[in-house]
């Protein structure tokens, strides 16, 4: 069983609890032991790195140091914002000018640790082939839209994963569930991010485009891997509909939820009931209609 340190981050404690639950369920199914970082603290998020890079590095770095002390060589966080902070800590530790104060603040170096997103973990450590094999309830006949958001593969020098402008890892994973995955041009466009709080007309416009394009391509759901994207697209979907005078009804599940569903897990166990826009449409079994001969995952 592969041991991977798990950095949950604040979103997965509250708003994105279903992301946390489904991540645990899917990782367990594929034999990945998630070791929660003991006494973890906030990654520093936007306030820390816009105030002082060293403060940001030290806050995130403390978590890495604990993970290393717990004997892990890989740290996974489902949140792309946390991931960027963790990568920033690693960069500071390697920076000749910052290394000394960093080690002084954190208490040790964090060399040799690999930090990954949940998407990267599933793509590189499990992979589409293994997922396809494990599918019990294929999503054949469902059209799913992969949406990566701005941070998962960017900035390229930091993320070092997939193509920064045209990522395909989530496409491959979703195809493995049996779903039909169209080429989505807005894969890495901005959802409006934290402007949801101060200027929700921005989110109305930016997330609105993403939802529109999803509908235009015949997508039934838009699959995400970032709690903030999920919030804007799902929780604010009514606001967006009001803003752009539309009547969209597109569920926004996490990648872990969709994979869990395909593995045959109970939607409740995956926290599907926590989504604002009802994901019921995903529970329809269309494999029969598509023709039994195809069998599990045949669409991929």
């Amino acid at each position, binding site marked *: 069983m592969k041991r991977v340190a798990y950095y949950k981050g604040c979103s997965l404690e509250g708003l994105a609890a279903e992301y946390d639950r489904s991540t645990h369920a899917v990782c367990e199914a594929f034999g990945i032991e998630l070791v929660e970082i003991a006494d973890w603290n906030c990654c520093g998020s936007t306030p820390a790195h816009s105030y002082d890079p060293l403060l940001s590095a030290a806050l995130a770095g403390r978590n890495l140091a604990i993970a290393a002390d717990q004997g892990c060589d890989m740290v996974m966080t489902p949140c792309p914002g946390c991931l960027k902070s963790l990568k920033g800590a690693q960069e500071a530790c390697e920076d000749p000018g910052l290394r000394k104060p960093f080690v002084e603040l954190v208490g040790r170096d964090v060399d040799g640790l690999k930090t990954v997103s949940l998407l990267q973990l599933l793509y590189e450590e499990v992979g589409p082939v293994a997922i396809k094999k494990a599918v019990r309830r294929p999503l054949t006949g469902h059209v799913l839209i992969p949406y990566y958001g701005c941070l998962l593969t960017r900035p390229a020098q930091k993320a070092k994963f997939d193509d*920064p*402008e*045209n*990522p395909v890892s989530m496409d491959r994973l979703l195809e493995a569930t049996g779903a039909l995955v169209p*080429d989505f*041009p807005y894969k890495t466009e901005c959802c409006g991010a934290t402007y949801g709080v101060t200027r929700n007309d921005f989110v109305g416009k930016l997330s609105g485009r993403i939802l529109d394009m999803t509908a*235009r391509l015949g997508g039934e759901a838009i699959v995400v891997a970032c709690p903030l994207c999920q919030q804007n697209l799902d929780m604010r979907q009514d606001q967006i509909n009001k803003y752009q005078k539309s009547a969209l009804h597109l569920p926004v599940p996490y990648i872990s939820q969709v994979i869990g569903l395909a593995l045959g897990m109970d939607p409740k166990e995956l926290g599907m009931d926590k989504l604002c826009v009802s994901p019921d449409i995903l529970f329809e079994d269309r494999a029969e209609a598509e023709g039994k001969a195809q069998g599990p995952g045949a669409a991929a």
Partner: protein
Amino acid sequence: MRIGVFVCNCGTNIAGTVDTAKVASEALTFADVVYATNYMYTCSEPGQQEIQRAIGEHGLQGVVVAACSPRMHEPTFRRAVEKAGLNKYMFEMANIREHVSWIGNDKAANTAKAADLVRMAVAKLRFNQPLFSSKMPVNKRLLVIGGGVAGIQAALDCADGGMDVVMVERKQYIGGKMAQLDKTFPTIDCSSCILGPKMVDVSQKENITLYASSEIESISGYIGNFTVDIRKKATYVNWDACTGCGACMEKCPAKNTPDVFNENLGSARAINIPFPQAIPKKAVIDARHCRQLNGKKCGVCAKICPVKAIDFEMKDTIVTEKVGAIIAATGYDLFDHSVYGEYGAGRYPDVITGIQYERILSASGPYGGHIQRPSDGKEPKNIVFLACVGSRDASVGRPYCSGVCCMYIAKQAILTKDHLPESNSYVFYMDIRAPGKNYDEFVRRAQEEYGVQYIRGRVAKIYPRGDRMVVQGADTLLGVQVEVEADLVVLATGIESSAGAGELAEKLRISYDQYGFYMESHPKLRPVETNTAGVYLAGACQGPKDIPSSVAQGSAAASKVQSLFAHDTIETNPQVALVNERNCIACGKCIQVCPFGAIQWKELRGGIKKAEVLPTVCQGCGVCNATCPPKAVQLQHATDNQLLAEVNELCA
């Protein structure tokens, strides 16, 4: 030996950070130095006369000049001492400019280092021997590698001068990229109309031997006497028999062969003559797509061919040619835009490259010169051009400007308006680079007379919306985001070095830069020479170039060859390895290590074997000298004694 030392001030280049007078006075204390002075510009006419005067007045037997790099002026000073009656190898140069004054500011340290370098040069000179070159006949035949417009120009110029020319082209036709173009800027004259006659000339001139579908296998020898092995690739068609009638193409059933000449727009047949004016007009079978060659039953072309030219058993053959000079004119390739994920990474059929658009515009192209979209054949209304795709972008490893894209976009936009008066063209650009004769006027015409919308800014993303492409970018002059719904997007992909340029450079023993472009001998003053004597450059293999510059460089390279061939003989370089037979133990190590095959066995009376250097083949690299266990092989002018004398002085 009576030695004179001349320390050059080089204006303030050296004197600014080196006390040249002190170096000269110190030199007077070195063994055998009887005269030393410093001078403002030693390389100038009076500077050289000063050396010659001193040789006569002080009875000098050897001269040291402490100045710039010997790459620059060693030949100048060698000539000067030769004129004054010395052997030109009784001369040494100490580089106190590039190696001292230009790289340090500490005057005291610089002066001491300069004096050290002069001391080493004096120590070496004391062991110098007069060397004499011999004369070798020049083989007055020229090899041109690459049959694009630059190579054609060079070949025709030399052939007009009465020389024999061998042209090698790896494609099955000559004409290069220019043969694929529709019209040319800034005159909008038809590319094949101006290139065609030149291609015909190449095929008709009796003193030009053309090897198409051929590549350079290996090159040996040296200026005046190169031996070149040429690999004639199997074409599966006997070209002596083939009349170019094209009957085979019509009947060939392999209809899904990619049409490379038309940049993969549409398809060709496995047996193909790429375009009507092709020179040589001979068919070639694409072995990857031919049914017969892939084990299926076919052979239709063999049955249909009226002259029985098809030969499925054909193999590559090697021919050897002897030439006296080589012009590399291997051209360029185009940047592969699939690294730009934001532009679709090559997924969208209606996002095409500039060269593809040339084929669409061309009357002999895949759509007969009618502008239509590759995806559905519809006539486009809005066409967007993107400049600098793979140019001036360090993030994809192409920081340089390709030089031609601004112009060819303007040309294509003008032609688009001519073909489709109702269409709208948009150009996203960073800067407009139009520095040639009548170039800027041409771009202005595109903007002012043809109404092409120029938008200054980069494009962030291209994606499909319905059956159109959305081009999302910035207008940095207005400071706003812009979105254009386009029917067709043309990416002005930049120029990169030709595939395989590096391997050919190694065969030619010439250098190339980090992007694969061949290095000229001097960026300003020796633009078509290389650092290998007898090898010259023409066209875009040396760097991105448009047609006028490529042609000019082709002619320039040809004139260099003609001035070389104006001599019946050339002087050999006496700085080569020499075997002292008394010391040679016939171990054969030197023969093994020589990279040029310049050492062979020689049998003395009684069957005793010794190594022997062929002075005409030896390049003077010195590897044999370093390898030889009893030090029997010595590189003349860089013998062990000479090098050790320098080291001893340095360590003294």
